[in-house]
């Protein structure tokens, strides 16, 4: 594998070219068992996770039977008293809050990772890296309480400004209108962005750091600036892992429960504004699951969970397509 392949960004899977082992015979049983243990673990992982999905699908059957698929997806009515359930506001809420989190979180995470891996002087790297990682150590309920009790009041003071400035823009202005409560879709998105920051940035940083220094050094030797090295050398080399990291963050944002529940305002009706309360699939589960009494109600909640898994599945497909597409385009350009 030559450096030029690397630079032009062809997908790198060095191990696929790994020569077969020629170990001595007494090693063979150990090799055999190691291999089998790895296979077992991989299939155990897939098996358990698959079983979970099956179990979730099985438990939603009452609700699927009652509401069907399309009707459940597009209905906005969620009424435990009349036992009518529909998922639409929650699907939108989940997608919108995660999208806000990604729009804010991805650039910041990338910046943090590049800063730690490439720019910062050594004495600053470690403390900053440790500090950002510490964000992941904070229990999500603490994010929730912080968001509700500390951040929301401060943010509420900024909301009239958002109302005046962004709300006045024709078209997208509608997205930024509402009473200054400090809670709602946008607040949830911001809290989620902070929560996924350590996940995305620490993975990006780690993969940036394992980029062979020969690559980095040859680029610098050619006179490339730090930014050019980061953007043109390191990012293409690590692209798959970076996108993987972003999707780890996105996955976390889509499934986050406690923190969102505290700050999103928990309204079951869909609103046109980011400043208004909303709800996500996990927040509804957290709010209503433990008190749901009828079979249909419980089953509808689990059905929501199944839909969340389907949403993740679609998002994941898009990611795979994206990675393939990027690979092809850069391959063609080279």
């Amino acid at each position, binding site marked *: 594998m030559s450096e030029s392949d690397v630079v032009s960004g062809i997908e790198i899977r060095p191990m696929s070219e790994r020569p077969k082992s020629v170990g001595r015979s007494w090693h063979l049983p150990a090799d055999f068992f190691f291999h089998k243990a790895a296979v077992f673990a991989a299939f155990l992982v897939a098996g358990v996770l698959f079983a979970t999905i099956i179990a979730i699908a099985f438990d939603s059957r009452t609700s699927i039977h009652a509401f069907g698929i399309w009707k459940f997806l597009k209905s906005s009515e969620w009424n435990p008293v009349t036992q009518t359930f529909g998922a639409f506001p929650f699907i939108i809420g989940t997608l919108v809050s995660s999208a806000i989190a990604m729009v804010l979180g991805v650039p910041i995470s990338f910046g943090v990772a590049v800063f730690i891996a490439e720019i910062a002087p050594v004495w600053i790297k470690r403390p900053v890296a440790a500090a950002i990682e510490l964000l992941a150590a904070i229990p999500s309920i603490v994010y929730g309480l912080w968001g509700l*009790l500390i951040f929301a*009041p401060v943010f*509420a003071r900024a909301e009239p400004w958002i109302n005046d400035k962004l709300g006045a823009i024709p078209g997208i202005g509608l997205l930024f209108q509402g009473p200054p409560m400090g*809670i709602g879709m946008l607040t949830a998105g911001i809290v989620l962005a902070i929560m996924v920051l350590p996940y995305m940035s620490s993975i990006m940083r780690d993969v940036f750091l394992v980029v062979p220094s020969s690559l980095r050094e040859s680029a610098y030797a050619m006179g490339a600036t730090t930014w050019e090295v980061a953007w043109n050398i390191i990012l293409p080399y690590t692209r798959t892992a970076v996108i993987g990291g972003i999707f780890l963050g996105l996955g976390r944002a889509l499934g986050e429960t406690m923190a969102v529940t505290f700050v999103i305002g928990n309204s079951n009706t869909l609103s046109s504004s980011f400043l208004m*309360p909303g709800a996500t699939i996990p927040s509804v589960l957290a709010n*209503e699951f433990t008190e749901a009494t009828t079979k249909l109600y419980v089953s509808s909640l689990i059905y929501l969970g199944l839909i969340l898994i389907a949403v993740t599945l679609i998002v994941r497909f898009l990611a795979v397509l994206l990675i393939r597409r990027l690979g092809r385009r850069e391959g063609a350009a080279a």
Partner: protein
Amino acid sequence: MKSLRLTAILLALSLVGLAASAQSTLTGAGSTWVYPLVAKWAAAYQQNNGVEVNYQSIGSGGGIAQIKAGTVAFGASDMPLKPEDLSSAGLIQFPTAVAGEDLVYNLPGIQPEQLVLSGSLVADIYLGKVKKWNDPEIAKLNSGLNLPDMDITVVHRSDGSGTTFTFCDYLSKVSPEWKDKVGANTSVSWPAGVGGKGNEGVASYVQRIPGSIGYVEYAYILESHLSDARMINRDGKIVSPSLKGFQDAAAHVDFTKAQDFYVILTDHTGPDTWPISGCTWQILRKNAPKEMNLAVMKFFDWGFEHGQDMARSISFGPLPENTVAAIKSYWKKELGYSL
């Protein structure tokens, strides 16, 4: 990987001495509302009798599901089960203690307990029909107050809750429109407002948003010094929430006559009766091992006898005397054995 090896050693050390120590432990789960009371009783009971009663608040629905599944010795719910549901599932239920909830508000210039509300007015506010604080409907009840020209922000519980059930049950009794459009359950389809998680969530929204109104448990009002409203009860009297008010609600209901104690304490008669009073029921399985049921009964019997001061100290009202007696004969009748 040195750190892994070290972790392994630490783990091995921590797992040593994991010999299952067989203690006499009872597990119960359910209602969040009654959790402080049972936790308090359990701590004292453990000191006096050596029996550990581990009660966890996983929600009333969870409590009902778990007692049906037989994973716990008793379940607790803020919403009583109907007698026919009980008998079909082989369960029995009995009340534990009474409590209440009240509306809290954030209105500049208006002090706690100055605002007076009626049930139908609260229903109209929560239906989104009364939108302003200086609405004539509110002004009519509060002639002395200088009500601001401010939008009302309605705050409700977002999580399923017995507090919500009691609140909505009350509104259904006093407002036909509420009953028709919304109804009563542990969570409902709210016509208006924002939802806060738990009492804490509702309280913090109310403290934050001027012009807001919400409902929280009485214990929470006392502990967090929120501005609470006075209510007009069924007898037309203006009352403040109090333990006595909750107990009067219980006293004006004949618990002893109702089958399986299926009575809801909201909107009852009596001059001092607090209209939004509630109660929590404990649920047992008829076919659970006799020793287990006896141990649970013993615990609650002890609580009824010795735990009433503890209950009062955390704003729970004791049950009337005759109700406790009725519970004991109910045990005997339903289970065929007694303490």
